[in-house]
């Protein structure tokens, strides 16, 4: 009897010890714990000269997140959007707020090149990865927190400058660009490409951002074979084209970021004044690829608009890039894991094949399109020419010296 009690006691002790060990090693069933969301900040312009682009970027980001069910690698995603108001100081303030108050891990945008330069040091210090929206600044590369897409401003327009000389046959060119870092880079990249191909840039003009009336600059144009304009968005571009037309000048116009600037609304407003203007675009909705068809279908269903532009596409693809990076790290949003994961991404996007340089600059093709009238509607044509962009253009497009 005594032995029986002893055995029971030993058995009880063993049972207690077993439960204790199981608890200590974590094998006991746990209560479910909610995973922390990954916070993606977004800086878009809803007011100011490029106010019309904000909703387009937002639609692109939201579509990509909706496709992912606002979740990546088992973690929920929280999107926090702020208005950068087409103003560099506002963009910087809002970015600091997103980082300090909202504790974002990644930021999509802002758009303007000078805003990139303003926030780059703080982004690097805070180890927050930032993506450009429509091209980025060469000067932001050393900070190694900038995902520059589709490429740097100069590298995008450099091959187009060559194209204007070699394929269109123009020999002299005037450039007019908005006086801020981004558009100066676009205009100078095109000027360098044009000059490297053998052309002569006879004049460069720099109206300030938000110039309401371009006529004084148009009146000061010298004579050239072609005028290239690089202004800050659809509104300023439309004003310039309208006033150029009103002034009765006949030199042909070419442009950059045509797809972003020639929105269906802008084309409808401009009417015949824009017809025939050739431009370089990073995207055209008419690309015949499965990725693009899926994107166009999705954005049309979401916004009700038939012709998405590079604004929606860039935001969509950049969000996809961020999601792919997070997927590769298993949901680890830390800079040290996410930055190399993004640089290793190779994917087919709505815009075409995409890869990155070791510095975080995307390498993608560009397209030449033209404003035309089709079935009574003013639209951009399908691409007339594919402009291959090489990583080497990032350096080759630099170092332009303005003619005196």
């Amino acid at each position, binding site marked *: 009897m005594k032995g029986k009690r002893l055995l029971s006691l030993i058995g009880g002790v063993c049972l207690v010890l077993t439960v204790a060990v199981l608890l200590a090693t974590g094998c006991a069933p746990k209560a479910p714990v909610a995973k922390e969301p990954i916070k993606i900040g977004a800086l878009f312009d*809803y*007011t*100011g*000269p490029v*106010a*019309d682009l*904000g909703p387009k970027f937002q639609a692109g980001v939201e579509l990509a997140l909706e496709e992912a069910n606002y979740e990546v690698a088992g973690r929920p995603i929280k999107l926090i959007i702020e208005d950068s108001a087409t103003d560099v100081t506002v963009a910087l303030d809002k970015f600091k707020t997103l980082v300090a108050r909202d504790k974002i891990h990644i930021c999509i945008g802002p758009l303007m090149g000078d805003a990139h330069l303003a926030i780059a040091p703080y982004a690097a210090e805070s180890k927050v990865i930032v993506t450009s929206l429509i091209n980025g600044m060469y000067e932001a590369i050393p900070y190694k927190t900038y995902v520059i897409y589709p490429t740097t401003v100069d590298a995008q327009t450099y091959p187009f400058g060559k194209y204007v000389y070699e394929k269109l046959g123009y020999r002299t060119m005037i450039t007019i660009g908005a006086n801020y870092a981004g558009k100066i880079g676009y205009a100078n990249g095109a000027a360098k490409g044009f000059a490297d191909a053998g052309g002569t840039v006879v004049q460069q*003009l*720099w*109206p*300030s951002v938000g110039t*309401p*009336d371009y*006529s*004084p*600059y148009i*009146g*000061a144009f010298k004579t050239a074979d072609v005028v290239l304009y690089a202004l800050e968005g659809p*509104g300023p571009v*439309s*004003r310039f084209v*309208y*006033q150029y*037309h*009103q*002034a*009765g*000048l006949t030199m042909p116009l070419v442009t950059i970021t045509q797809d972003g600037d020639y929105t269906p*609304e*802008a084309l409808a*407003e*401009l009417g015949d004044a824009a017809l025939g203007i050739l431009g370089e675009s990073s995207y055209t909705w008419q690309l015949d690829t499965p990725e693009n068809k899926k994107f166009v279908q999705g954005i049309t269903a979401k916004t009700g608009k038939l012709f998405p532009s590079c604004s929606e596409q860039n935001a969509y693809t950049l969000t996809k890039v961020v999601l792919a990076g997070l997927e590769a790290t298993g949901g680890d949003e830390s800079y040290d894991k996410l930055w190399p994961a993004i640089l290793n991404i190779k994917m087919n996007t709505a815009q075409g094949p995409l890869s990155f340089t070791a510095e975080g600059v995307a390498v993608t093709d560009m397209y030449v399109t033209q404003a035309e009238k089709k079935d009574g509607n003013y639209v951009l044509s399908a691409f007339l020419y594919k402009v291959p962009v090489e990583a080497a253009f990032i350096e080759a497009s630099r170092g332009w010296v303005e003619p005196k």
Partner: protein
Amino acid sequence: MELLLSSLVNGISFGMVLFLIASGLSIVMGLMGIVNLAHGALYMVGAYVGWTIAVQLKLDFGLAVIAGGFGGALVGLLIERVFLRRLYKQPNEQVLLTYGFVYILSNIVIWVWGGYRRLQFTAPALYGSMYIGGMPFAKDRLAIIAIGIAVAIALWYLQNKTRMGAIVRAGMDDKEMTMGLGINLERVFTFVFFLAAFIAGSAGVIGAQLLGAYSWLGSDILLYALIVVVVGGLGSVQGALLGGLVIGLIDTFGKALFPQFAMFTIYLAMIVILLAKPSGLLGRKV
């Protein structure tokens, strides 16, 4: 030569728009002693009302000019009757109140018309350019110059050749004596404010041929208008006209000839003119 002529037409047409906006501001300041910083916002309201009529509803451009005028005038009248009449002889409070209206009206415009900047618009007949002496000139700019001259003559006539103009001038020189003669100066004030706001609203539509319509137009154009009033001198139609033309031409030639200094040329001109003539080029001593 081409640069000179095109800049001349560009500068005079822009100067005429500045004259239209500044004339009302100048008279209201001179007669009523009211610093109405919302005057530019009334111009903006007029531009948007005109856009709705001419572009959205595709109605006559002339009708848009009149509707824009009434749009600006009604908002102006509301500000004067409900708020400003309580703040006569209180310039600090007037400045705060009316600048507050710049923000309020800008936000209302964003709510009603959206943040998208509206492109320039004009009458179908004024679209494109016409050749004079082998040189192309924008038709809408030539029309603006003609309208500006007509309004300047009408305002000059109203101010100098009519009984109402005599009362206004008397009120500017000696308010107490004018009221002592049995003239209801408050009613005159209201009429003048209404007229100034009407011209501002109409100017918004006329100026939209060059500048379009956008939500921060109120503060952009106000800055120009204040410079024109300072340069031309307070309280006279002729001063506003001269100031508008001087600033319009300096701004245009500055951008065409010295684009790197384009942001400073009008301020530089203002400093030089103020040093030479502190009361403005044709300012009344009030």
